[in-house]
């Protein structure tokens, strides 16, 4: 699994016998023991190993949960509650699995941002990056289907919103939707197949992970300087014990945070609505996906306008999938020859801005698009009445400090700053129409639209342009050189 010459030496006769028939010990040795790794990897590089731990955790806890879970609409919810209450340690295993999904995504986002920062997607590691994006897509599919299984209110209606997106595809969308659901709506058939696929996909992830490792073991790991290994003796150390120990330490710290969630805040990342059994006749007031999908949900909802012949709904779906699709072509969008942003001061500023955009998109996804971000005025009460009902409405409105927003021959709309004024107006004009509260300020919708634009602009405009106009700092001669410099002179340390 490596382009590097094997350092495995079978010691005993049995080892030699096996090595001549199935060199599996050699493969493991060359991949995870003797494999030469750049000696300057920092802690951002430990998230690969952390992710491997996450995947194994999810698979083991998932297999156990499947022993007790019943994939039927009448029994799924109760079987999950039974796991929580009656199955020995069921609560622990389910909380590990549920929070494990969040921890998995937390780690994968850090891992991806690390790849972006240090240019790990650039030649010759394009295939490693693309396989990583495929893993990420599989993770999202797995997480989405897993969230449906408890058959709570958010499970059911979240799934319904997402599968309805497929209905936005012109001509064949509705047929594909019915095919995926196995019925005209989300029901038992859907639950069954989601359970089956939720069990399958993690093993597909494991398969792609092997390809991912194979790919970057062929090219060699990237490193914080982005400079290639020039002299294996000077620039690298063997994976074991140097990085097994470093990764092991990071895993322990990560598991402590993980345990903090499992034991002290097991539901803080979930939604209370999902502890109500799914009811197709009652939609929760505020449907939101799990936190790790929120930025994409924000992008989906930001497209509220038709783009030429593309209706808004389809536009939102295209934008959402486009936000992931753009990652596939990133290696060819970047025009810079320098990998690491350590030596690209301008690109580094934009990168930090991009991280902020992603986080803010998450907040936008969690918020109602009509909620106010920045308040520009006090709430007012709006009255809308027909003049036939209230011929003196105009006069009354003026008399009570109301502000007439618009009026035509039939209807008059009056805004009041104070509830008392509105009540007085209603009594004087003899109408019983209810007032609606109107908020004044900047809502989330335009903010989400701006953030969506910035997200795409980063990949499609800023990254290609920066490589052409930016003047990077000098890269170190070699990995060893960068270490000696930063250890040797105080200036170099400060410059880091």
């Amino acid at each position: 699994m490596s382009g590097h010459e094997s350092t495995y030496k079978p010691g005993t006769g049995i080892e030699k016998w096996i090595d001549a028939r199935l060199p599996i010990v050699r493969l493991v040795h060359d991949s995870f023991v003797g494999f030469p790794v750049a000696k300057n990897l920092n802690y951002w590089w430990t998230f690969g190993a952390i992710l491997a731990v996450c995947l194994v955790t999810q698979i083991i806890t998932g297999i156990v949960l499947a022993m007790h879970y019943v994939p039927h609409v009448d029994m799924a919810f109760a079987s999950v509650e039974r796991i929580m209450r009656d199955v020995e340690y069921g609560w622990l295993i389910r909380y590990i699995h549920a929070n494990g999904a969040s921890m998995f995504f937390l780690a994968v986002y850090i891992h991806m941002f690390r790849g972006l920062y240090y240019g790990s997607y650039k030649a010759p590691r394009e295939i490693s990056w693309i396989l990583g994006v495929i893993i990420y897509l599989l993770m999202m599919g797995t997480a989405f289907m897993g969230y449906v299984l408890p058959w709570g209110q958010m499970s059911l209606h979240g799934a319904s919103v997402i599968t309805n997106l497929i209905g936005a595809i012109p001509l064949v969308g509705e047929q594909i939707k019915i095919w995926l659901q196995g019925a005209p709506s989300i029901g038992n058939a859907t639950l069954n197949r989601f359970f089956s696929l939720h069990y399958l996909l993690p093993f597909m992830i494991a398969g792609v992970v092997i390809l991912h490792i194979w790919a970057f073991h062929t090219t060699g790991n990237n490193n914080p300087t982005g400079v290639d290994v020039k002299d294996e003796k000077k620039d690298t150390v063997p994976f074991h014990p140097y990085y097994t120990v470093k990764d092991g330490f990071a895993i322990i710290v990560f598991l402590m945070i993980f345990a903090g969630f499992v034991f002290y805040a097991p539901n803080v990342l979930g939604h209370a609505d999902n502890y109500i059994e799914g009811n197709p006749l009652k939609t929760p007031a505020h449907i939101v996906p799990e936190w790790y999908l929120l930025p994409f949900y924000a992008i989906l909802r930001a497209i509220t306008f038709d783009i030429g012949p593309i209706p808004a709904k389809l536009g939102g779906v295209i934008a959402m999938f486009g936000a992931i699709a753009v990652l596939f072509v990133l290696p060819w969008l970047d025009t810079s020859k320098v990998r690491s942003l350590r030596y690209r001061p301008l690109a580094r500023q934009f990168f930090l801005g991009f991280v902020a955009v992603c986080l803010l998109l998450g907040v936008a996804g969690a918020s109602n698009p009509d909620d106010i971000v920045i308040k520009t005025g006090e709430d007012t009460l709006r009255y809308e009445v027909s003049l036939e009902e209230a011929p003196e409405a105009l006069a009354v409105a003026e008399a009570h400090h109301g502000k007439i927003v618009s009026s035509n021959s039939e209807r008059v709309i009056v805004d009041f700053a104070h509830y008392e004024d509105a009540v007085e107006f209603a009594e004087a004009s003899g109408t019983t129409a209810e007032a609606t509260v109107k908020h004044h300020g900047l809502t989330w919708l335009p903010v989400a639209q701006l953030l969506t634009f910035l997200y795409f602009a980063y990949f499609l405009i800023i990254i290609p342009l920066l490589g052409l106009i930016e003047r990077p700092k000098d890269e170190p001669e070699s990995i060893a050189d960068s270490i000696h410099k930063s250890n040797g002179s105080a200036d170099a340390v400060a410059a880091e």
Partner: protein
Amino acid sequence: MTDETYTETVDEDRRDFIHIAAGAAVAGGAGALAWPFIAQMLPALDTRAASSLEVPITDIPEGGEIRVLIGGKPFFIRHRTAAEIAAAESVEAGDLPDPQTDEERLVARADGTLNPAILVVSGSCTHLGCVPVGPGSNTGEFGGWYCPCHGSHYDTSGRIRKGPAPTNLPVPTYEYNADGSAVTISL
């Protein structure tokens, strides 16, 4: 041994034919075998059989509605008040986001007359499929239904009036029974 040499004549055309024929047989076989594995995900026969329902309408109180699930899909059967019918009929259809008159949204009884008191519509918001709330909860600004997910307002004819939903609540395929006491809704 023998000095005899064998010369083999290769008929390239014959080999190409065998290659192409074998390849086509494998591709055709794989395609034919793939179809059952794709089609098994379509709605099963029992699911399709459960796609219509007879709903008695005589017990619905005026101003109220009943909600039924057919194949998991929600439908509203509403007994409209005179004021609600008048509100639905008074609107100029041309001004609406999805122009339709109230009459176009009704189905005739067995004797050919319309029954404006009973309105049958789908209970899935045309925006993203949430179930709107209605009489007894919040009927929105136009007295029909209100979708709490993203704020779509429907009028007393189930037509979209305000909010992100692109089209009216669809009227399903349904028919009155002979004496007009029930409707049979099919998907």
